[in-house]
């Protein structure tokens, strides 16, 4: 595992030119069905290139969230493998894999009564002893990093010390992005990160996500249902429908015909909203 880390990046934290064969994140024939009988993912195979912004585009119930949750181990696939930088995330590898990934959640996933700084540092809690976690006495390096990241995402010192619950939706998602970046992740998984934000704020947040991830050499796998945002921010768009990949190309390739395949079609309209495990 340590060897893979050095292949992927040098000690300063920025990525070297990566050999094209080693994908940052790879899904191999991943399938998942829920107890209700719905087939959320149907032998999905996908290879996410390092340092690229990949968007999973599709309507509700197409399997985007299930795929992302499977990638971070919040949901276990029935079949198939998921590899992070060549290592399987199943079993014992999961905790280590999670520390090399960052996740941005649709509902932000912050602890509202902790300050924004504490929320960002909590992202690094996995690498800190339990006594430090108990008193939230993080090492100075982590504190400095948190402040750096908060500044990068556009928050100031006063906001750093305010409870996360007092922030607006857009500000909270900025904190979420900062938290996702604190471990210098290989991949950032973003599950509908702007779904609860107004269009203007959504643009800002998507831009921030793309820039901040790019600066730190992290690949992004972001699920969206907004076509305009996908077009504007993605390097590559993967269209999902009923648990299968129905499109894979650049934003330029996203023709109305391709969109019709992804979004329209009687199956999509009749399908109930899938409960996420």
């Amino acid at each position, binding site marked *: 595992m340590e060897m893979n880390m050095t292949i992927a990046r040098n000690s300063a934290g920025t990525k070297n030119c990566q050999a094209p064969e080693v994908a940052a994140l790879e899904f191999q024939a991943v399938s998942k069905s829920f107890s209700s009988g719905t087939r959320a993912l149907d032998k999905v195979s996908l290879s996410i290139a390092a340092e690229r912004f990949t968007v999973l585009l599709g309507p509700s119930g197409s399997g985007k969230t299930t795929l992302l949750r499977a990638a971070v181990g*919040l949901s276990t696939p029935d079949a198939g493998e998921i590899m992070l930088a060549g290592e399987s995330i199943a079993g014992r590898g999961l905790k280590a*894999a*999670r*520390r090399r990934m960052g*996740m941005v*959640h649709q509902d932000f*996933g912050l602890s509202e009564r902790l300050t924004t700084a504490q929320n960002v540092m*909590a992202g690094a*809690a996995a690498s800190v002893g339990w006594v430090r976690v108990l008193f939230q006495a993080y090492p100075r390096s982590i504190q400095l990093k948190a402040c750096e990241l908060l500044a990068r995402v556009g928050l100031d010192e006063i906001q750093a010390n305010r409870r996360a619950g007092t922030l607006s939706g857009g500000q909270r998602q900025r904190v979420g992005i900062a938290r996702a970046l604190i*471990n210098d992740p290989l991949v950032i998984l973003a599950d509908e990160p702007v779904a609860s934000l107004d269009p203007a704020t959504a643009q800002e947040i998507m831009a921030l996500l793309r820039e901040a991830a790019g600066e730190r050499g992290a690949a992004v796998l972001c699920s969206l249902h907004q076509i305009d945002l996908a077009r504007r921010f993605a390097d590559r768009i993967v269209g999902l429908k009923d648990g299968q990949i129905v499109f894979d190309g650049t934003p330029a390739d996203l023709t109305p015909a391709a969109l019709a395949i992804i979004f329209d079609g009687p199956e999509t309209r009749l399908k109930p909203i899938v409960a996420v495990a």
Partner: protein
Amino acid sequence: MTTLETPPNDSPWHLKSPIDARAVFIVIVAFVLLSFSAQRVDLGKMAEQMGEFGLASVGLKDSSQIGRGLGGLVSDMFPVAIAERTPITMIEHFDANRLPPFSRIETVQVEESKLDSDTFQTVTLMVEKTYLVQPAGYLVFVLGKMLETIEIAIWASLFAIIGSLPLAIAGARNFTPHPLIYFAARSTVSFLRSMPELISALFLVLAFGFGPVAGILALALHSMGFLAKFYAEDIEAADPKPLEAMRATGAGSFAALRLAVLPQVLPSYTALTLYILDRNVRMAAVIGLVGAGGIGQELKGRYDMFQYDRVGTILLVIFITVLLLDQLAAHLRRRLI
């Protein structure tokens, strides 16, 4: 189902009425059962006596049973005992030159009748009796006992908080390490809650003897059950999204609990803890009745010796202390939550 009164040309929808036949039936059954129960617990007598008391207090009746009882009690209790008079013969190492602060010596001449063993006749003698009088002696003593009671309550609450945390984590469905452990934790909690403190104090006095230890343990065990149940329910009801987010960062259960769950449940925990502290002070006062230390023990002792003026002092001190602590708890609740 009741049909809403609709104007003639309006919708045919039937809206469900909240008061249906089943609800009415339940109310009637409850009413009948309560009537039977009222007879069995002598509620009629209570109503009669209260009516009598009401009439007596406005002068329409000469006296009432409640009035007589209360009147006797009040005349015995007031004035309450503040001072302490001890015969010096009962004080060890009494030194007239080194009296305790604020105390004085009183000597009185009392007539005493004694039987002369030679002549078998009753002889009246004038005897001098010397007392040490401490003007606030008994009050100070009672205050000391009240402090002991509060200390019992604090220790019991501390033990309860510490003991209930692992029980709560084990008894929370989203954090328990194993279903069997969950079951064991929940059963333990039910058991602890089902034993009234006074009864467990009785048994603990047998095990640990008279004194505060039995009281502390009795209160701690019951409070532990109470706190563990509600702490566990709070953990289970916590918003799962921050928890999932923490797990997604690779954090273990401890970090997830500390950083995602604890901040959410802390206001509720604080409220519960303050409640338990408050309740334990009141229970600690009572628990002495079975010998488990504190002011209750003193209360029972004096009551059994018919020294109602001292009982009055004790009751007054308990009342004022609980009142003050109530105010303090309310103040703390406002500041902390």
